[in-house]
Each structure stands twice: as C-alpha cells, then as structure tokens.
C-alpha cells in the first residue's frame, strides 16, 4: 500500500519523511491513495493553524487538528483512506505480528492494547506486520503486512520505550483528543519484510485492566466480532464473505484478559506454543 501526502505546511511532510525514511516508494511510482492536509479557510494557514484532513476519501464535518499535531493528522488521514477506500483486501481493525510464517491477529476496542502488545511482541522476536490494520487477501486467506508508525498512547509510551531502548520514536504529541501520543517507528526487519504475507494462526481479543483470564470463542461469535472490526466487509460482497468465513472456520480464537503487558505476553506465548 502506498500513499501520497500533500500539505499546506512543510512541517508534517518533513516529519513523515524523517520517520518513514527507509520505506520503499509506492510501486511504479503510483500511490494507492492521496491524502491532503489543508487549511479549511485561507487564514487558518497562519492564524492558530488548523489541519483539516482531506484526500480521496473523507469524513464530512471531521474536526481539524492543531498544526503541532500535524503528524497525527497525517496518520489519521491515511487510516481514513484505508478504512473508507480499501477494496482489495478484507480490512480488519487489528494488529498483527508474525513468527515462522504464521501470524497472530489482535483486535478489539480502542484501549484494548493491540498496538502496545504488537510493539512489545516486536521486541521479543516477532515481526511487526502492523498495529492498526490487518489486510486479509480473499483469494489466499493470507494476511498482508502494513507496518506504519505504531500509535502509542499515554502510559503505554513509557512501557514501550523501556522495552525498545534502541527504537526510533516520533515527537511527543501532548493534549490530543486521546491524550498523549507518540509514534514508534517499526524496526528494520519489519520494513524489509513488509512484502511477506503470513498465514493467520491465532486470533486474539485482548482486554486490558482485568485479572488474567482466557476463553475460547466459537466461530459465530468470532464472525460477529470480526465483522464489527472491519470497515469494508460489506463493500467486498462475496469475496469478503469467503475471506471471513475461512478465517472463522480455520483459525482458533481466544479472548484474553490481562492486568499488565508482561502477563499478556506470557499468555500469547503460551497460546502460541499450544497451537
């Protein structure tokens, strides 16, 4: 997946170039989506500058962000293109990590910890495939990588920085609608291998802030939860149905509750070795 980002201000572009340095250019020089960061009124370029999200696909009436959070605006706008415009792959709102050609998909509500867990697993020998979207190819059932900047919030920022002392991070963005945000740059391996898909082997529904617990889910429950976690399931028609049906019938699924990151990591490793 490739993006083109246009902007009325230089700063967000400079930050994107810095943090995505080392990423391949869009294939054939033709990006899949266009994103625009623009000033809705001419004076908004300079007077309390506010970035409105634009591009091929937009949400009307979306509130602009202050220019200081321009990087966040760019990331949100790219997410929006995927959420509204992705038609090649079945899109799941999930993080994904890979080991030995097989992938764990972690999905859930905001705050469930899917980005944080993906980042931490990435520090323990797993390859990060993505923290926001998992792309499932309807033809093959494989999950494709989409490793963009990992969005970490509030307390998770320090947890991940401690676990990944060598990693590159974006600036601290304080006071966003979701609190403090910092972006983690995926490591060299994640970037180098982003064209390698993986076989989904485990679907997890993590829930943060509870005593450690785990239960299996039947396929129909997984179907309901995964379709809720997909923005393009309906738009894909029968291809989406086949992709989702295959996932829920073939891939084991577990709901895990966890009180802290270490507990979650342990549960993931245990479940993985039991496969």
């Amino acid at each position, binding site marked *: 997946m490739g993006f083109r980002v246009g902007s009325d201000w230089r700063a967000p572009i400079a930050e994107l170039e810095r943090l995505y340095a080392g990423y391949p250019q869009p294939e054939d020089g033709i990006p899949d989506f266009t994103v625009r960061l623009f000033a809705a009124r001419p004076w908004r370029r300079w007077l309390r500058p506010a970035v409105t999200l634009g591009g091929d696909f937009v949400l009307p009436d979306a509130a602009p962000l202050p220019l200081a959070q321009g990087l966040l605006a760019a990331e949100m706008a790219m997410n929006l293109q995927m959420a509204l415009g992705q038609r090649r792959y079945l899109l799941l709102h999930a993080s994904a990590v890979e080991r030995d050609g097989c992938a764990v998909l972690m999905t859930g509500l905001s705050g469930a910890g899917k980005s944080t867990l993906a980042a931490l697993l990435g520090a323990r020998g797993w390859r990060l495939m993505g923290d926001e979207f998992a792309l499932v190819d309807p033809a093959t059932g494989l999950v494709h990588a989409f490793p963009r900047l990992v969005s970490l919030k509030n307390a998770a920022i320090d947890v991940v920085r401690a676990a990944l002392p060598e990693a590159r991070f974006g600036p601290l963005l304080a006071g966003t609608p979701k609190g403090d945000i910092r972006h983690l740059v995926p490591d060299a391996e994640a970037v180098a291998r982003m064209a390698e898909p993986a076989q989904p082997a485990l679907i997890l529904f993590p829930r943060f802030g509870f005593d450690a617990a785990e239960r299996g889910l039947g*396929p129909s429950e997984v179907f309901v939860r995964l*379709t809720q976690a997909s923005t393009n399931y309906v738009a894909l028609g029968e291809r989406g149905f086949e992709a989702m*049906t295959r996932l829920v019938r073939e891939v084991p699924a577990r709901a895990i509750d966890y009180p802290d990151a270490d507990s979650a990591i342990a549960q993931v490793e245990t479940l993985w070795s039991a496969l």
Partner: protein
Amino acid sequence: MAERLYRAVPADALRIVPLDDFTLIFHRPSGLSHLVTAPAPEILELLEQGPLTRAALLARLGERFELADASVEALDARLGELVATGLVEAA
C-alpha cells in the same frame, strides 16, 4: 381462501455455511450476509424440496427436527424475517 405458500429462492442465490449453533448465509442478490439459527436453516432445507404452506412447515419442523417451542406465532415471525431479507419467497 388459498393458504399462502412459501418457497425457496433459486439455489444459486444463497451461499450457506453452517458454523456452530449458527449458520452463515450470503444472499447474492443483495450482497448481504445473515447469521441465522434454528429454525431458519431447517426451514430453508425443507423448502428446498418444494413450496409449503405455513401449516405444513410447522408440521414438518416438528416431525423432522424436534424443535422446541414451535408455535405458529414464532414461525410467522421467522418466516416474516426470512421473506423480508429475501432468503425465502412468499407466493
């Protein structure tokens, strides 16, 4: 007054995938997916053999599938849903 007949839609209109207690159905004319449970899959199976009136359906559901709490009202409600979504046709 002739009783209303219910019939199956053409076979290629539906893609049916049984899961567990629930069955997934992709309805090709609309592109919509439906997650259904008893007695809907059983109704579809019975109608595949030919159209039936409501009374006949109720009788056969009782005979073949031992469905608990079978009543005309419940069957009416299910049939109404199936017709509204296009999974079954009403003559």
